[in-house]
């Protein structure tokens, strides 16, 4: 999937801690990592392992205490146009239609409304919601709302798509179909994906590489290559074996 388009992330000695009840709580300890252009990197870890914090630092929503993050060689300062974020909640503006919401990202970046809506319509169709262009968020199911959020992020054509447990709030059935949807979109769009999840099966289904963030102090983060052909089959022996390997990492198997 590597292309000349960019979307390469370099993380060096990244550390971040929070003050909680007067105590310093280190969530990231000098983490170094390269995310390749066009790959799908999935971050897993127990709660408190700092996976969401890492994603928020990459998004530019949190500042690291130490270390640096560079995208295509340029160190980031805050949010940037080459990145888009998909959150666990769809975060749609309730007063805008599906079309208005998807066009929103382009419009705030100064694209004229007709042009923004034209490009939005393309991505609304891509996530299969063409018939719902004029619907308001309250009329949508959770899965549909999340699709709208995904379309909004794709519409700004980011080099890097950051996803923070995007399917975490969905029911099991919707979740599986949305995982297939994300795999398809990643395949069609020329984009680097960094996705945070606590669902190991989701990680193996989507990832080129899985980053496991340890919860215990002193333990190093681990990277696992998922060397499986796509589209992936969840019941295949090798798929199951990866799953067991990940479970072992968490001391669950």
């Amino acid at each position, binding site marked *: 999937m590597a292309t000349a388009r960019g979307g390469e992330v370099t993380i060096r000695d990244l550390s971040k801690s929070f003050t909680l009840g007067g105590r310093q709580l280190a969530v990231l300890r000098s983490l170094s990592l390269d995310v390749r252009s066009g790959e799908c990197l999935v971050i897993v870890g127990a709660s408190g392992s700092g996976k969401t914090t890492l994603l928020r630092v990459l998004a530019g929503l949190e500042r690291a205490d130490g270390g640096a993050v560079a995208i295509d060689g340029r160190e980031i300062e805050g*949010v940037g146009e080459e990145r*888009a974020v998909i959150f666990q909640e769809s*975060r749609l*503006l309730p007063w805008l239609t599906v079309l208005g919401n998807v066009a*929103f990202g382009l419009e705030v*970046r100064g694209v004229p409304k007709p042009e923004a809506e034209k490009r939005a319509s393309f991505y609304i169709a891509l996530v299969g919601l063409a018939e719902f262009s004029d619907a308001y968020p*309250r009329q949508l199911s959770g899965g549909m709302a999340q699709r709208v959020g995904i379309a909004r992020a794709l519409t700004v054509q980011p080099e890097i798509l950051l996803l923070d447990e995007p399917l975490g709030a969905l029911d099991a059935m919707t979740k599986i179909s949305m995982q297939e949807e994300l795999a398809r979109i990643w395949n069609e769009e020329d984009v680097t994906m960094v996705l945070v999840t606590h669902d190991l099966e989701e990680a193996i289904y989507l990832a080129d590489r899985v980053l496991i963030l340890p919860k215990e102090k002193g333990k190093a983060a681990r990277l696992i290559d998922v060397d499986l052909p796509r589209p992936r089959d969840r019941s295949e022996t090798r798929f199951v074996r990866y799953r067991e390997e990940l479970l072992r990492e968490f001391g669950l198997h």
Partner: protein
Amino acid sequence: MMMQHIERAVGIGGRNGGNGFGTEAVRLAGRASARILSRYGVLLGFLALWQVAAASGWVNTAVLPPIDTIAVALWKGLAGGSLLGDIAISLQRAGLAFAAAVIVAIPLGLVMGQVRAVETALDPILQLFRQTSALALYPVFILLLGLGEASKVFVIFWATLFPLLLNTISGVKEVDPKLLEMARVYGARRLTIFRRVVLPGAVPSIFVGLRLGATTALLLLIASEMIGANKGIGFQVMNAQYNFQIPLMFAAIVILAALGLIANQALVGLQRRLCRWSNSVG
């Protein structure tokens, strides 16, 4: 449940070769009357009780005249034009004060909700003013502005200001921070975030303020017109009572109630237009 029974009964009628058009009409009429009854039944019962109590002499008709007598007094006042001047002056006082309150409170509330320093600085004095009854301050306003129009409009403005201001502030502050963050991720600057996220998000709460403000404006209108006025609906209520023209007094009260209902309906209608996205407009 009741509607289901009616529909089922009509369905059987239709199968038995009944007149399709007739049953349809009966069904629609039944539906409409059931809806009217469930909504206005208690109100109609209240009016009927009043009428019967007055007409049959259970209550002193000098104090509680029958509804038809009040209706006649209302008609005479409106058709004869004697109440129209009062309505006009009252609308002018309340309208001016309400408009001024909107012009001051909404922009101020938007700023206070957005800029922490402004809110911190203004909150204590705002709380003090808010907890001081506007009616208690009316004599002060009269001293400062005289007994004419200015003090009346000002006391209405004063009381209307607070519900509008407080609801605008809370509307701005209660906009979901996750939406603000989303806009920030797309690179929206502060002014864009305000225009595209904060303002539309605060509109429902601003409307709560507008509706409370309208109610307050009418309340203070009457109070101010009962002191030192010689025209206006509030004056008429008081004056008719002094002169023992009880039907006229009730006619003036009916006009007041109607003004309140119309103002509220107008605001609800406007809110429906502006907030089509929300189904919580009540």
